[in-house]
């Protein structure tokens, strides 16, 4: 067996400001929080126009969009929100 573990995506509940429902998002540990936010925007783009300036909210706080999903410490089935910049 290799020491390198197979990394499974982390399922998360994503809520985009302006949307009418939450979506299940699969987060890769190596992707950045900003990439995850863009993925949610894309998944909701049928209902919500894309906003460039955003905040990523996790556990009630805006977190650095440049850190990775692993660094952010997401646990399976946590909630995150993507909102317009400065609305928190």
């Amino acid at each position, binding site marked *: 067996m290799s020491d390198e573990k197979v990394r499974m995506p982390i399922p998360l509940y994503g809520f985009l400001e302006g949307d009418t*429902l939450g979506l299940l998002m699969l987060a890769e540990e190596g992707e950045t929080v900003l990439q995850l936010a863009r993925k949610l925007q894309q998944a909701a783009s049928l209902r919500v126009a894309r906003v460039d300036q955003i905040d990523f909210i996790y556990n009630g706080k805006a977190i650095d969009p440049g850190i990775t999903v692993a660094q952010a410490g997401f646990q399976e089935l946590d909630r995150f929100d993507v909102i317009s910049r400065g609305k928190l």
Partner: protein
Amino acid sequence: MLSREEWLPLARKLDWDYTYVREDEVFPPVISGHPWLPHTEWKDWEESFKTSYREYVDNQYEKDMAVYAVRDAVGRLENIQKLAAPWMNSLKVHAAALPLAEFTGVIGSLRGARFGRDSAWRTMSTFGALDEYRHTQIPLLLFHQLVRLDSQFDWAHKFYHTNNWFAIASRHFFDELTLGQNAIEFAIGTNFVLETGFTNLQFVGLASLARESSDHMFERMVTSIQTDEARHAQIGHPVLAVLMKHDPEYVQYLLDKWFWRSWRLFSILTGLSTDYLTALDQRPYSFKEFMEEWIIDQYLRTLDEFGLKKPWYWDIFQDELDIYHHMIYASAYTYRATLWFDFVVPSPAERKWLRQKYPKYWDDMEAVWEQVAERWRTVGPGAANELGVHGTALPTFCDLCQLPLSAGTPRKNTATVLVREGRKYIFCSEPCRWIFLREPERYANHKDLVKRVLSGEAPADFSKLLTEYFRLTPDTWGKDVYHGAYDWLAAQKTSSA
């Protein structure tokens, strides 16, 4: 021979003392319900409308004949084919969600017929069970002929035998309310809350919409059903009156729980038909107006009559009147292939009407519909482009009501996560979370759709989820009624070009 007035009290009040068994063995608390009281506490139980079996059969026969006469006169396929296409989809919602749910009402009523604590209650429940059979059979009979017209009507039989997400939510509701319920909670949840309140939405509100839509067959059918509901719903009041003397806190809990659970389901069943699937010029009122007139005023009066309080979540509920079913409709439209009926995009004129009726949050909903319309403009109308105007990520669901996480507003979704005994749950709203936490042992092991997908019980592949788990086919899954070919959309495109 006894006269009717002499005979009826003997027939409907026939209780006796047990000598070979204890009373709590004849009426076990687990199935008769809480609080368990000796019969002396129930002996004055009285229904306000008394009937004999002969009278019941005569009345029901006449009502059935009246329904069949209307069917023969205006219920033929050629009559139905003249109805507006969006309205036909209201019928599909009703046909799938209600008739077999009424059958679960047979089971619940029969439980009351055996384990209700007074003989008059048991007599009324026996009639109630016969009523619910009728409410299953008549719609199934009338909708069956429509399968020839549109195979989506086959879901009248099929719906509850699938794992479609809305079927999961409806089963979760009716399994608890009717199929698996003790006699007391059934009387409060079904007879008192649902039948004196929320079924008015389907059987009175929808009857009125049907009349406006020239659907006289449906109007006659639900009006006929409503006359039965009004009779057997009265079981709830005298049960509640006895409970109030012994455990008013429990009564308050049951009412608060079942009002919320009923609101959740019926805001979808009736809200979508009232505000979206009925032609604009045939809408006599908005869903919110109907709720205020037929549910809220009457419910608050009844609470007051019994010395009960408004539910603790009343402010949340009143706020939801302005937005919840709109959030659900927009979500469902953009995931319409997961359902068995078709949808429409509200036109600018309809959105203007909706803004007048629901000014509080309509700006946010307008933005959503503008975005959907823009997507249709981009991909162009046509059946082949349906999936270009459709969601792709898996929607998420509440661990209590099993409905999409669509509560709150587009600006602030109110879903909350709960960790309990090492397991994570999510709830669309505080009332759903509260209900779960009051009886976690009842709900904790039920898996919502997301958890079924994550555990491998349901397919993760979206196409397989629709066909293998939801039991839909490309022919029967929901579409835009007009496949995006709206005159107003084309006109907007021309004027902006």
